[in-house]
């Protein structure tokens, strides 16, 4: 269930980006996003350069453009919110295409859209080049508390199991002629949710007993702890360092 079980978000390939140790990648992406967020929004060209940097990283990882763009759809709710901004923010009005929009609102919308999109793109590159298990290992090496890493690994490991259980309950409901149409049917759905909770909790108890009977004492053994070399850190640092250079130029020019 755990070994070699790739998730849908991961794209297997043999590229330098895939080969980097996970904690280097996580640190690099985090530093990159921080740099992007710290950039002044008036430096429009800086965001274009960031996009080029991310595109270069995605190309090095051989991620298809269509795949990347499809994953970007996750931020649609916030795009809607950003599009509202020019209409609700007070401030001096500018006229674009016959519409009266506020200047600060346009800047705000641009700010959220540009930074948000770059952040999502960076996360997508990370998630599609790193396997789940190594992602968790990387988090652990970055000094995230081991208990939290264990909880996350259990959630990932059993996420599909619990989701499948929910799907089976839905099929069972539907095969008995039930279709949820409105508020009146919430009771049935909530009972399913309650049953799902009880099943998940009881499975957790069984998993714990199974682990205890195999010698679990509260910590998981780390089997493949290979520290990253200096070269690997340098490769990983290329992206955030380039971004930092862009950011500093942005601050000095604006």
């Amino acid at each position, binding site marked *: 269930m755990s070994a070699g079980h790739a998730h849908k978000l991961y794209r297997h390939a043999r590229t330098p980006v895939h080969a980097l140790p996970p904690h280097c990648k996580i640190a690099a*992406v985090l530093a990159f*996003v*921080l740099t*992007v*967020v*710290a950039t002044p929004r008036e430096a429009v060209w800086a965001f274009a350069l960031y996009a080029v940097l991310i595109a270069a990283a995605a190309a090095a990882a051989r991620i298809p453009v269509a795949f990347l763009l499809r*994953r970007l759809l996750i*931020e649609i*709710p916030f795009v809607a919110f950003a599009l509202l901004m020019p209409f*609700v*923010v*007070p401030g001096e009005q500018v006229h674009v295409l016959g519409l009266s929009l506020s200047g600060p609102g346009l*800047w*705000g*919308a641009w*700010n*959220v859209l540009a*930074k*948000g999109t*770059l*952040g*999502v793109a960076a*996360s997508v590159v990370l*998630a599609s080049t790193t396997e789940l298990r190594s*992602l968790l290992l990387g988090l652990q090496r970055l000094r995230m*508390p081991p*208990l*939290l890493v264990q*909880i*996350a690994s*259990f*959630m990932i*490991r*059993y*996420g599909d199991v*619990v*989701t499948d259980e*929910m799907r089976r309950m839905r099929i069972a409901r539907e095969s008995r002629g039930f279709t*949820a149409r*409105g*508020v009146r049917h*919430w009771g049935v759905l*909530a*009972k399913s*949710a*309650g*049953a*799902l*909770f*009880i099943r*998940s*909790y009881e*499975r*957790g108890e069984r*998993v*714990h007993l199974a*682990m*205890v009977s195999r010698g*679990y004492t*509260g910590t998981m053994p780390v089997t493949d702890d290979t520290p990253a070399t200096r070269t690997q850190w340098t490769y990983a640092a290329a992206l955030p360092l380039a971004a930092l250079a862009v950011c500093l130029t942005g601050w000095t020019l604006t």
Partner: protein
Amino acid sequence: MHVPDGFIDAPVSAATAAVAAAAVGVSLRGARRELDDKAAPLAGLVAAFVFAVQMLNFPVAAGTSGHLLGGALAAILVGPYTGVLCISVVLLMQGVLFADGGLTALGVNITDMGVVTTVVAYAVFRALVRVLPRGRTGLSVASFAAALISVPAAAAAFTLIYALGGTTDVPVGQVFTAMTGVHVLIGLGEAAITALTVSAVAAVRPDLVHGARDLLRPLELRTAAVTLPASPALSSRRDGDQPERRDPAVPDGLSGDRHRRAGSRGPAAVAAEGVAEAVSESAGAGTATEPKNAIAPRSAKRLWLVGVAAALVCAGGLSYYASTSPDGLEKVAHDKGIDSKEEAHAAKDSPLADYQVKDVSDERLSGGLAGVIGVGATLAAGTAVFVVLRRRRPARTESETAAP
């Protein structure tokens, strides 16, 4: 609503990240204390449950549907510590894997949706569940209120973070109104689903409802004097994993239903029946011994006192801030001139007319005083009706038992 990168500026993001880290640290310690080495698998599975239940669609009307956010549900079912951990892990994984919510905004998201929702929901739930009558209804009402309040509370917390470090210049008042308004609606749906789900869990495994663990009766062995020599079947059954011992003194016809239900619903279910049901059952079975450790029905006094206090606060204090034309109809009538022919109420000259106390000049004090007096009068009338009804009820039950 997952906050993306660039929505909150860097210093406030860092500060919320520190808050989130501290909260998660406290929760880790608390969860380890509560669950010992069970913490990892249990919290992990509950996080998987939260993740899955967020995909369960609840149709609202005309093709639209909503889903559960799960903060309040997790808090009530597994407690605040584990709840914070579960929601935080779900948010972390959503941010890292699905790019839902920015990495730099992770602190904002965890503080807002993980910590505030869970802690507020748990506090409200505990406060209410102590006051409300025991049983599943009280549990449902408390979960409803907890979820209902927790969602706008998260929206308010988001507004606060936004006011401190928002990168756009939308006025804070507008953000607050929009966020809270939308989230009160979302909260209603969340509340209904949470209450129904908690009630469903409480019906089957009440020992799993963490927030009400100490309020429900502990697992109880029903014993009675064994009159027959124990047959091998009986003794093996006693040694098995069913803690409930069958009472041989009870005839099958009387108790069969009870035992079948208990067996199919797991041993814990027996412990969970409401107090009233347990009492009526043991009374009905006749030969079964009265459970010694049954909790006495909670006295109504505390509920009554809290209710009075709340009513007085509302009437005396909050009426300060009430609109002077609170009645929509009155206002419309006044605006449209419908009330020009209005005749004064017969009680116009009474000491409390128009919700003001006569001869008290301060308008606010007067309004508050009138409210307090009104509550007192209503309370007296209500209590009188209640007392009369209660006096009549025993008489009726006596006559009923006498009739057949």
